[in-house]
């Protein structure tokens, strides 16, 4: 995504929307958050990526003044979350993992109540509710009680409620967990739109693809600690070797091409049984030149050649030393998207 977008931020002032140092939260014996540092530049999308129970939600709750940190400090636009919570609350919008809206009321009623609480007058609140419902495509369902809402509609309403005061910083705790792919894409568009309008977004996700798609920077969090931080590209590079993917014009050349690759690059290669694509890690980029020459000398014609950085999935596995067992389905999607 947004190469242009990233450039725009760099040009802007280097305001920090979030600065957190050594945040700790313990529940009994469990150090849910164990010394987390986070710096989020204003106007960017920052992704906090980690598996279930890594401490993402707890970290967000501390930043959003919902939970008091046991140690460490955090500032939102320079305002301390412990000492100046009331100011911080005027700067943030929080959309929780479980929809933080009133189940027994209608969408309009929910938005009117939140608007009124934020100081809007009766007519203003009504107007605001109407606008937001329209913006989020909920007008038709406005009067229905939320019990009959789908997961996606609920999330959208939830996000709409966070935007009433147009807060400069928005926390999204797993905004797309449990949504179908179409609704998820809609949500992504909405989030990108928000940042275009100048908001900063801090989102947590267990989906590598989501972080890859949306975030300018990512913190990978595991067992309450940040195990890696950087741009998506930096993280992928940190894992090391890119891999070479090539396909021959004639299927009968595959075996010979493969032998050539293993001989020249001195690595093991794989052949995909589906499309006959050969892939091999690149340990020394220089040797790729030799490989291409050898292939031409052997009279093997190539149909396709590409160099690919590792997927975030691999990054995660590499950083934490354990995989994302429960997200194998999601990882599959990432690979598809990357190819």
């Amino acid at each position, binding site marked *: 995504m947004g190469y242009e977008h990233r450039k725009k931020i760099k040009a802007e002032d280097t305001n920090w929307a979030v600065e957190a140092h050594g945040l700790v939260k313990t529940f009994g014996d469990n150090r849910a958050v164990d010394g987390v540092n986070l710096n989020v530049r204003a106007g960017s999308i920052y992704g906090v990526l980690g598996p279930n129970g890594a401490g993402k939600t707890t970290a967000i709750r501390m930043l959003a003044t919902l939970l008091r940190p046991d140690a460490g400090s955090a500032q939102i636009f320079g305002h301390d979350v412990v000492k100046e919570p009331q100011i911080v609350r005027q700067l943030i919008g929080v959309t929780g993992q479980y929809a933080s809206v009133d189940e027994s009321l209608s969408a309009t009623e929910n938005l009117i109540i939140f608007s009124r609480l934020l100081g809007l007058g009766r007519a203003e609140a009504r107007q605001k509710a109407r606008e937001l419902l329209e913006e989020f495509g909920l007008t038709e369902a406005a009067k229905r009680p939320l019990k009959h809402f789908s997961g996606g509609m609920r999330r959208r309403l939830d996000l709409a409620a966070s935007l009433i005061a147009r807060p400069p910083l928005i926390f999204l705790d797993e905004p797309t967990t449990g949504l179908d792919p179409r609704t998820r894409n809609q949500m992504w568009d909405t989030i990108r739109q928000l940042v275009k*309008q100048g908001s900063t977004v801090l989102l947590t996700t267990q989906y590598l693809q989501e972080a890859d798609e949306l975030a300018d920077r990512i913190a990978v969090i595991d067992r309450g600690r940040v195990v890696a931080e950087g741009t998506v590209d930096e993280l992928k590079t940190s894992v090391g070797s890119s891999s070479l993917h090539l396909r021959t014009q004639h299927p009968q050349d595959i075996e010979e091409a493969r032998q050539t690759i293993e001989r020249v690059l001195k690595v093991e290669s794989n052949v995909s049984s589906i499309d006959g694509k050969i892939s091999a890690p690149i340990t020394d980029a220089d040797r790729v030149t030799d490989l291409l020459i050898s292939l031409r000398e052997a009279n093997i014609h190539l149909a396709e050649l590409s160099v690919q950085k590792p997927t975030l999935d691999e990054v995660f596995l590499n950083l934490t030393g354990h995989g994302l067992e429960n997200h194998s389905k999601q990882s599959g999607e990432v690979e598809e998207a990357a190819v």
Partner: protein
Amino acid sequence: MSSPSIHPTTHHQLNKRTSFTQSVRNSLTMAYRGLLKIRRTPEQLFDVTFQPIIFTLMFTYIFGGAISGNVENYLPVIIPGILVQTVITTSIVTGVQLREDMDKGVFDRFKSLPIARIAPLAGALLADTIRYTIATVLTFTMGYIMGYQPDGGLGYVALSGLLVILCSWAISWIFAFFGVIARTASSVQGISMIILFPLTFLSNAFVPVKTMPGWLQWFVNMNPISHLVTAVRDLCNSGTFGWDLTISLIGAAVIVLIFAPLTVRSYMRQT
């Protein structure tokens, strides 16, 4: 980029504290939310509707003859008694519902909004006065139907109704506190009943205190519920303001002064 940019500095004026007017406004909005919820789920008014009707009928016809010779003479005794008992018992629901409400995600949002910390609590408690009003009106209506004619007149009856509603609101802070600290809604119900049941029955609400053993009389005369019942009887039956009224009001104030800050503090600490 058609929409205006959002910047923290120019966005809006940042206030370090919530003003008193804002607190009141926030609480009223939260009360409005409570009323909307009642309108959406009218079945939760079941108890305040039927308890006054059933209890008034039952107690009057069961005890009337035994205690006051006949039903008519018992009515001036039992109606204020049953009013206080019913309405105060209703205030338990406040704590139970608060617990249920707090377990829902929406409370997270309330906490993350720049609103008065007390508003979600105060609002819930305020909205529940509608329940007390329903219970009060129904109890008096049952009384009238059964032949109760308070000598104090309608004005004093209304005044006594207000007194009971006010005191129940004060007492509901105690249950709100239980609601905030308890783990489950049913435990709130349990604790509250164990406290209220003896308090309402070990009082002068249903029987003359003279008939009780001495040690019990001591407790019954101390019991704040007795003072409230007496204050209501004074108002309804003779249209007078007595010492009991003052005690009831002071008691209500003390409860609020102790439990409101206690509840708000535990509420803030919870998550």
